């Protein structure tokens, strides 16, 4: 029955991956760029929350409520200040600029915080577990993370489908020139997309930091997982990303049951299999949401 437990854990892990992935998916859908520093920004958020939680009386929840919106605003300005300029320079420039950012952030964090691992204390209630049946033990944290993922994805869907700005985001994803002719300042629209991406990835980073320890170098690994979740789920579908995350989490946990050293490899192999046999992903859509 440990297998059932592994399945449940793996599926719930998908929620965390979906949180990491939705920002990546959004930025690619709207701006056609992959932010190679995506995972590193999550780690940066985790470190900022760690500092906020330990240096002040805020505690973890307070730090979360502070850091996530701050990061969203930060993302808006990173987009308008740097990434927008890279977009204007050429298709290669955004990839290279975000890669450079990734290296800068990792090394700056290492200088600032040292290479030791840190962790965010989620509080005694949240780190408790829920017993389901006789063999399955599910941590509250995993459940909350999954629930958060569903809430965030639903909110993003609503935003994109029902609001004026969300509609314009989808329009700009289709044809930025025509969107400008309809009155949209594309730089502002892109800034909003980036802000959403940074906010969600900050939340993802914090939820990760609560479940396991982190150090400055884990950013790229999370980027790869987020990327795999997007590709497995299928480009253009937010809910597909959740499905992709769940498949990835399942593969990793089942692989880890077989042999702990195989966990990550199993996830990568599933990704490569999807790439080889169904490159459009499990639930491809032609839209960004």
């Amino acid at each position, binding site marked *: 029955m440990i297998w059932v437990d592994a399945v449940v854990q793996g599926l719930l892990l998908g929620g965390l991956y979906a949180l990491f992935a939705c920002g990546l998916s959004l930025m690619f859908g709207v701006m056609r760029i992959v932010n190679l520093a995506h995972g590193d920004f999550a780690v940066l958020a985790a470190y900022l929350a760690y500092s906020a939680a330990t240096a002040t009386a805020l505690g973890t929840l307070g730090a979360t409520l502070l850091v996530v919106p701050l990061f969203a605003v930060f993302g808006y300005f990173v987009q308008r200040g740097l990434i927008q300029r890279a977009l204007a320079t050429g298709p290669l420039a955004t990839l290279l600029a975000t890669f450079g950012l990734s290296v800068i952030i990792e090394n700056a964090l290492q200088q600032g915080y040292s290479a030791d691992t840190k962790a965010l204390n989620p509080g005694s209630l949240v780190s408790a577990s829920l017993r389901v049946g006789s063999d399955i033990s599910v941590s509250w944290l995993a459940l909350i993370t999954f629930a958060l993922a569903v809430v965030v994805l639903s909110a993003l869907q609503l935003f994109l489908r029902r609001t*004026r700005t969300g*509609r*314009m985001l*989808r*329009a700009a*994803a*289709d*044809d930025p*020139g*025509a*969107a*400008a*002719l*309809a*009155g*949209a*300042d*594309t730089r502002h629209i892109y800034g909003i997309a980036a802000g959403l991406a940074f906010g969600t990835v900050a939340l993802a980073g914090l939820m990760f930091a609560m479940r396991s320890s982190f150090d400055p170098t884990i950013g790229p690994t999370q980027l790869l997982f987020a990327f795999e979740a997007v590709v497995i789920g299928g480009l253009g579908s937010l809910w597909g990303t959740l499905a992709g995350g769940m498949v990835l989490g399942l593969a990793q946990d089942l692989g880890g049951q077989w042999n702990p050293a195989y966990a990550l490899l199993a996830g990568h192999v599933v990704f490569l299999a999807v790439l080889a046999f169904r490159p459009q992903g499990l639930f491809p859509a*032609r*839209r*960004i949401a």
Partner: protein
Amino acid sequence: MTGEPLLSISGLTVYHGQLCALREIELDVAEGETVAVIGANGAGKSTLMGAIAGTLRPAEGWIYFAGRDITRLPAHQRVAAGVCLVPEGRRLFPSLTVRENLLTGAYRRRPGPWDENRVLGLFPWMRERAGQPAARLSGGEQQAVAIGRALMGNPRLLLLDELSLGLAPAVRDRIYAQLPAILAEGTSILLVEQDVGQAMRAADQVHCLLAGRVALAGPPAELTAQQVEQAYFGLSAAPGGAS
């Protein structure tokens, strides 16, 4: 009619790289008027529309709209100013529905008579298809939606770039038949048209472009077919002379 024209272009010069696409263009659109710009391919018609809509930067010259210098105004701010372009090739948003496409036009709407209801009334077939993805419409239907999208911003000046392109004559006629309704609500129209006959029928003033310059201008009634032909193709009046 007030004395000052709604749109006033003077000395406009626009380059495409090293090629001079427009050379010292002078053009006015009065309030309530329909002005047509005709010319062969490469004459500079779409460049002119691009400069007025803000997608192209002029090297020299001025564009005045309602007394305001909009020459350097970014494209997305011209909608709020009252200039809306229906671009060549329609350029609807394929992943949005018909209704959502219309609503994007209202992103920076000005106060005015055009709203979703009014626009759907202009093209009655649209009401039933409002929930369909725009990519599934025919060329003529897409043209109608594109016009509707521009109208949702309540422009004072509606720019129509190559309305007839890719459309069957009957479809084109149906679209042109809606123009009077648009004019009646107080919008002026500047249109670019490959079909000379259609332009002459629809417009109060016709300008003919040739190699970036205005070769002929005036009300259609005062222009002879021969004059238009010569201006369009760049033939001089004297027989046997070099062009």
